[in-house]
């Protein structure tokens, strides 16, 4: 959760800016930390120093903390009712598949268990 801005400002005056950095080509932008500055220009200079002076970043995004819109309510992000139909694990067809294979004479056997072995697609649950 973002800290409250009333308590966040350094010396009561400067503004916090959050810094996001990309470490390698193709990587996502990840939060690095923050700097405090009087304006975006100096914030950018400071972000470069604090998060890239060893060449550890390919790209930086510098954002006024006050401009970030945050959502961290778990009821909104992870609602409690069933959303399993949105996920691969939500489809349980192991027994149905086994019956189908039995019927068509395609049942595969593993050496030890005698249960159907998974195919390359990992289809059985």
């Amino acid at each position, binding site marked *: 959760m973002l800290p409250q801005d009333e308590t966040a400002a350094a010396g009561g005056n400067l503004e916090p800016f959050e810094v996001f950095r990309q470490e390698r080509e193709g990587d996502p932008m990840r939060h690095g930390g923050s*700097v*405090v*500055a009087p304006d975006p*220009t*100096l914030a950018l*200079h*400071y972000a*470069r*120093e*604090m998060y890239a*002076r060893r060449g550890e970043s390919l790209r930086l995004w510098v954002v006024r903390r006050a401009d970030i819109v945050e959502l961290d309510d778990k009821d909104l992000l992870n609602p409690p009712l069933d959303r399993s139909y949105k996920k691969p694990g939500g489809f349980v067809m192991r027994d149905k598949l086994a019956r189908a294979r039995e019927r068509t004479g395609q049942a595969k056997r593993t050496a030890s268990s005698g249960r159907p072995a998974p195919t390359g697609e990992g289809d059985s649950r």
Partner: protein
Amino acid sequence: MTARAERPPGIEPGLGPATRELLLALADDDFVLGFADSEWTGIAPHLEEDVAMSSMAQDELGHASAYYRLLADLVSDDPDRIAYDRPAEAFRHNRLVDHGRGDWARTMVRRWLYDTANAIRLEALAESTSRPLAELVVKVRREESYHLLHGEAWLDRLARHRGEPRRRLVEAIELVGPDAPSVLTALPSEAVLIDSGIQPVPGADLLARWSARIEPVLAGLGLSLPAASPAALDPDTARSGHGAAFNRLWTEFSSVRALDPEATW
């Protein structure tokens, strides 16, 4: 250009002394400014700014190291010996960086004046007939672009803030401004350097280009550069006769090595 391009890489034997003079000027300028500015490490006005200032001081020292390395290869010496084991009067840095770092306003305006002048000088040297020098200068220029942005950001803020910041800025310009042209003043052996193309553009032209670039910026802020001091424009004095601030710096930086100059540190 074509005639020059056919010359072998490196530096021709007869050009030794003049080239040494040029490399030493480039190296000493960055070395002395880097040393002076590194003193801000740990005590700058803002922690974030402290880290930025220190990076720029390190960049200058890195550039100085690279120039000393070129020079060392030319004269078969060691970069550290050239940098550290000379008497104070043998340093060939310009009069602008000879001033002490002073307050934050002086440090910032001195940086800006130096960075803008240095940019003009390096722009020309990127075309040097000395290939090792030209190749190095291309890299140095890429690092200097950040310094220019930072310097301009501060010049702008100091100038626009009526009251103490602007007052201190104006004082600093009056103090160090007259010495700023010494960065570009012709070296005593400039004729040889121009003739060989090692320095493609004479100091007088560089000075004109620099004025044309910085005057509109200063004018836009209601500022102007004071007239150059005669010593800053004279090839024989632009890089000699160092003052108390440099002598203090020299005494400090040579003190550990002086314990045993032959030892490995």
